């Protein structure tokens, strides 16, 4: 997904995908590692079918991919090559900004 080439319809799907707390949580989880749909469903007080619908919305927004493995459906964050590396480095930057702030707080104590 190349963000500067998104069409309006893509942006609508992206916003719709992020508008729901469960879907945001699913994206956060699968960013850290793959999950089966049933594995995801264990984390939420809703039916398997409801979780499956959330995953389908995220799939349409190209935020996750779903793949059959045996009886399981495996959900992963959607990324390829450099796009993935850029996203990861952006997140890593956040970690270092927060670390630098914590160092500054310790130094402020003297």
């Amino acid at each position: 997904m190349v963000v500067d080439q998104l069409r309006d319809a893509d942006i609508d799907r992206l916003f719709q995908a992020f508008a729901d707390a469960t879907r945001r949580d699913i994206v956060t989880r699968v960013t850290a590692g793959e999950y089966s749909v049933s594995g995801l469903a264990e984390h939420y007080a809703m039916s398997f079918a409801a979780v499956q619908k959330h995953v389908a919305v995220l799939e349409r927004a190209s935020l996750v991919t779903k793949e059959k493995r045996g009886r399981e459906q495996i959900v992963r964050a959607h990324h390829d090559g450099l796009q993935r590396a850029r996203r990861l480095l952006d997140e890593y930057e956040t970690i270092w900004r927060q670390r630098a702030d914590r160092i500054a707080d310790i130094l402020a104590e003297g």
Partner: protein
Amino acid sequence: MTVISSQKNAETLSFTVVAEFDAGVERVWQVWEDPRQLERWWGPPTWPATFDGHDFVSGGKASYYMTGPEGEKSRGWWRFTAIEAPHRLEFDDGFADENGDPIPAMGTSHAVMRLEPVGNRTRMTMVSTFDSADALEKVLAMGMEEGMKQALGQIDAILAGSNVR
């Protein structure tokens, strides 16, 4: 603003951050040298770090674990490859099993940290280079809520019409 600049290279999986602190070089060096200070800032509040080994000499090793919100522990190791107090520190950083033994398959990164005086302040330049995107992704898993902020930040970028690539 503590962080004054950052640079990312997706091709080489390297990240550079430059920060300035209101303290002298010797004082900033202590936040790396003293494990009790180091563990107060290395891990995010949701994944605090505990250093149970910190042999702060060239060739020495550090071992630490980070404790997640549900009590899960992720162990890591550092190997100090160069220490020139109080200006330069280099180390390799990787994951470890429950005995503290390195798990090479999970990937490693190399860090080069430099401190230099800027007037009464100290400039810290930190360069991290990862050997694989998987290694970087595993590091990020310990601070998942930050990942979410980033995703929302990308939406802000779309609204601002900026190029996220």
